[in-house]
């Protein structure tokens, strides 16, 4: 029996994606998984959460600091790949399994972590991307965390870059590209009112006969 559903939410930094997810979760009475997906994953694999936390939504280090990522060493003519079990790809695989397992057992909202890609073959999965104009995002970060404009802008730039590199690396798609999502919403066009965003999503879910 499959009457549970999953909503995945991708979000650019400062667009209010996480808050929307929490409001929507409250409204629908379902659980929201954000970084706490890590703890689920850790529980199931027997590993310590810290290991996952360090590598959460990050791509393998070897792409950033090329020389320090040694994956294989040459010995004579044959080269042997020696790889750590703690590598990012393996951890991503464990994470995906946890996400698929959660998707089978309960209705929930999963924020980020390539969940839309991992669950792309699940007909009861709705993928949403929430963005906003750069101005609105900067303002949200400044209000929420008391940052100066410069710091907020830098935060946005770095955060978006990190998320898109992570997403593009594992999914072979483009982060935030409309073809990857069922529904894309610009929260600033709804007056930055996240309750309106929630209402929009709910309307969409009804039209799709999900709820």
């Amino acid at each position, binding site marked *: 029996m499959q009457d549970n559903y999953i909503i995945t939410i991708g979000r650019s930094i400062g667009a209010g994606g996480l808050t929307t997810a929490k409001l929507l979760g409250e409204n629908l009475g379902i659980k929201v998984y954000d970084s706490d997906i890590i703890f689920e994953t850790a529980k199931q694999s*027997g590993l310590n959460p810290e290991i996952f936390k360090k590598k959460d939504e990050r791509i393998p280090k*070897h792409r950033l600091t090329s020389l320090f990522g040694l994956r294989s060493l040459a*010995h004579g003519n044959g080269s042997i790949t020696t790889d750590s079990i*703690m590598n990012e790809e393996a951890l991503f695989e464990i994470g995906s399994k946890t996400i698929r397992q959660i998707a089978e057992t309960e209705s929930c909202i999963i924020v980020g972590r390539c969940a839309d890609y991992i669950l792309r073959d699940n007909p009861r999965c709705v993928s949403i991307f929430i963005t906003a104009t750069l101005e609105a995002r900067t303002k949200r970060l400044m209000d929420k965390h008391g940052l100066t404009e410069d710091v907020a802008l830098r935060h946005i730039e770095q955060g978006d870059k990190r998320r898109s590199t992570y997403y593009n690396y594992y999914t072979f798609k483009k982060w935030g590209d409309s073809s990857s999502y069922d529904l894309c919403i610009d929260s600033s066009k709804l007056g930055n009112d996240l309750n309106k965003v929630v209402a929009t999503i709910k309307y969409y879910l009804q039209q799709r006969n999900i709820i």
Partner: protein
Amino acid sequence: MAEQIPLELGTERVGKLLKKYALPAIIAMTATSLYNMVDSIFIGQGCGPMAISGLALTFPLMNLSSAFGTLVGVGGATLISVLLGQKNYDMAKKVLSNVFLLNVIIGVVFSGLSLIFLDPILRFFGASDATIPYAKAYMIPILLGNIITHLYFGLNSIIRVSGHPQKAMYATILTVTLNTILDPLFIFVFKMGIQGAAIATILSQAVALVWVLRIICDKREFLHLDWKRLRINWGIARKSISIGMAPFLMNVASCFVVIFINNQLKAHGGDLAIGAYGIINRLIFIFVMMVMGFNQGMQPIAGYNYGAKQYDRTLAVLRLTMLCACCVTTLCFIVGVFFPRTAISLFTHDAELTDIAARGFTIAVLFFPVVGRQMVISNFFQSLGLARRAILLSLSRQLLFLIPFLAILPRFFDTDGVWMSMPASDFLAIILAEVLLANLKKKFRKEMNSETIVESSNN
């Protein structure tokens, strides 16, 4: 498929786990090292001491070629294993066709450039008028068949990660066996000399490649090569090359170390010294590869238990692996110090070459009873994901400490100086490894203590 992490890693007895994970790796490693030895043995026995030197001169060029193979191969295999884990077969097929074409391109370009500049390259590698004919005779067939070699290694590693590790192993065994049969046939029966050994190598890879291609083109598999849709996707190419860049640079660095060694040997000891190094290299290689097998077995166990914060188990598997590794390297030490001539007689009966090689072998392995620890520790850091320290340790023994000794010691001790630089570098590398390990252990202890305090205050 991307690795599944078996939970037994955190609970099963460490000794039993190490046996289970290390044994297949040790077998695979031994097969690889035998593969490298076969050519040397037959060439040494069939073509004489100068041919051994000629062959030894080609090692760096062969390494460089395989470095280019890893540049596209490692990344391709990694990406495919990630994609198969997500059942994204369409994209995996695209990566596969990329791997195929990139291997062809790299094979052709590498061969073309190397063939055009073969003479200056070999001279730069330390060839003399006496040795260059042998090096060329061996290298020309190898370079002409370079595409076969690249495709065979590249596609076989894809087969390994796509759920058929056994078939990949059979392909390896097939090439080793064929090469062992064809080598004497071409050298002794057809009297083709060192050139025959090269042709035998390429032929046996060609046969294995046919088999590998049959597996990889099998349309019943989710992942197969589609001839009609072969094309390069530069986005994927960039991705896989950026993954392969680190191992590529490591391989290139190790190439240049060998070139430096050969040149120093040529300057201070002449052509035969280079051949002697070729023999010593091959002999030590077997033992080092066995240690690498133990290392591969240790990796998942140490990595998992570190991730689960079970430091006592993490250190237990390290201790056990270090013990095993030191047994292996001590065996190498015993052979090198007490029976060097017996081992060298596998390759040559030439009195002068045997003398040089025996002396070199004995000096080179002086610190081997403890060098096993260094190799394991550097791998241990890698399995824990502490890449910076791992790379420092692995470069220290083979590059950072070795190069200065290689530059200085031969000035005072001639050929002996070249050999001496190896144990000297081993010695410093061991100290560095032990210091880093002691530091890590201290950190473990601190963390364990602070956790017990937290636990007891909670109670």
